[in-house]
């Protein structure tokens, strides 16, 4: 049986003394799966992403990513094997053109410029962004920016893809395009989102995070359709799972 992509044991982290954003969290992301993490505001979802990225180091407990323990000395190596799509679109694109933004990752790991550029153009073509390759990222629409951030992550051939609120700011059309781009990806994926319909479409398994702990874990169709469970964690049954005459929110 392959080693889990992420293995978290008794992870505790707090921004201030006495507070626990993550409280003895146990979590496993299996190799090849698409795991959704849902939960109310302040549940610890973003803290978890920051921890996996190595920006927050555990107060106690252990985090093992792609077979390596998360430690400062391992960070560069671990990050090079992961792809991140972060919440804020504008924070993630910082180069003068889309093409340059996408090629940064491979150039930084030593790929020759011509090869990196060819790879980036191929990826941008696949996403329908090729005509925008020489555009300034700040001038793109939210949907185009989101696809660009996905391209910046995918070009590094990550073994693990972490998507933090990827459909935030997107209109329904851009959201649909994004989902269709992510759905066929073979990568192990961790999707953190309030967009429960998207989680339902993409994820093979979900966990509900609340107060820094796992409150429930299971199949999306089962968990997200449970009105009592959802209401207990300030969530709502997605529209597509609502039964007629059933109230979605208690």
């Amino acid at each position, binding site marked *: 049986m392959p080693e889990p992509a992420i293995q978290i044991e008794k992870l505790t982290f707090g921004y201030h003394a006495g507070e626990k954003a993550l409280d003895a969290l146990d979590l496993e992301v299996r190799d090849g799966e698409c795991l959704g993490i849902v939960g109310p505001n302040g549940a610890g979802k973003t803290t978890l992403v*920051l921890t996996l*990225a190595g*920006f927050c180091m555990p107060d106690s407990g252990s985090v093992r990513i792609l077979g390596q323990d998360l430690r400062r000395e391992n960070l*560069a190596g671990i*990050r*090079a094997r*992961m792809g*991140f799509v*972060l919440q*804020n679109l*504008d*924070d*993630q*694109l*910082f*180069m*003068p*053109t889309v*093409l*340059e933004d996408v*090629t*940064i*990752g491979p*150039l*930084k*790991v030593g790929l020759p*410029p011509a090869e990196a*550029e060819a790879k980036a153009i191929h990826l941008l073509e696949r996403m329908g962004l090729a005509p925008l390759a*020489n555009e*300034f*990222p*700040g*001038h793109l629409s939210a949907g185009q920016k989101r696809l660009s951030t996905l391209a*910046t992550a995918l070009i*590094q051939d990550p073994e693990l893809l972490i998507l933090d609120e990827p459909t935030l700011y997107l209109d329904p059309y851009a959201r649909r395009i994004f989902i269709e781009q992510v759905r066929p990806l073979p990568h192990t994926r961790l999707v953190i989102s309030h967009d429960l319909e998207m989680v339902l479409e993409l994820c093979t398994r979900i966990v509900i995070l609340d107060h820094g702990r796992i409150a429930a874990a299971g199949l999306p169709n089962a968990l997200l359709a449970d009105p009592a469970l959802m209401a207990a964690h300030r969530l709502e049954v997605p529209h597509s799972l609502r039964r007629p005459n059933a109230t979605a929110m208690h």
Partner: protein
Amino acid sequence: MSCHAALELDHHGRGASPVHGLDPLAKLLAAAGVTLAAISFPKHATGELLPLFLFPALLMALGQVPLRPFFRLLLIGLPFAVMAGVWNIFLDPARVRLPSGVEFSAGWLSFLSILLRYLLTAGTVLALIGTTSFPRLLQAFIRLHAPHAFVQLLNLLYRYIFVLTEEGRALTHAWQLRCPQRRLPDPAVAAGLAGNLFLRTEARSRRIYRAMTLRGYDGTLPFRTHEGWTRRDLLFLLLVLAATAAVRLLPLTQWLGGAALKFPGVQ
């Protein structure tokens, strides 16, 4: 308002006119040549500077740069130029006598010269922005071997100046919606808004740095530099530099004035 003008000019910089198509390095060097010539004239030079205005004027005309944002942005710096030059009127001891016998302080001439130089140099920079997209300008700086840190700073500043302006605008809107009857906030509220903007800026810079780190940022960013330098670009640069040198070294305005005086009826 000025932000909107800057955005409009910046947007126009991505146009497709023949001037837009010129190599950005050629335009940058030409603009540098004109600027250097402008600042190298003696302090009382006024009429001699006028032919140099042809450069930004031609760039704008051929690149069809919109005049409204151009002049709006030009006006922003004008008070500073006035402040810098107005003291010359009182401090310059030299006197000037016109052929008609009227005498006045040479400070007026140096004041006018400072204003003209400001209009010329700022106008040249704005014309350059209106005819060259920012990424291409950055590439030109790299090809000039400008310090990498300078290019990176310029890139990040440009990338986020609009984002920060949006933050500032969002804060202002939030205040205006809650105090619709007041045009300007109290000093205490204004200080709070400024502090809030600072904190937002700090949080944003942290997020940006994180995103950069995740993509392997180690203190340097790789920029593309390949741009085709054609005969047309070389010709453009040589023409501008030759014309600028002629304006600087030859008494063109005297010749033109002398020639004009030879026309019947002109005295």
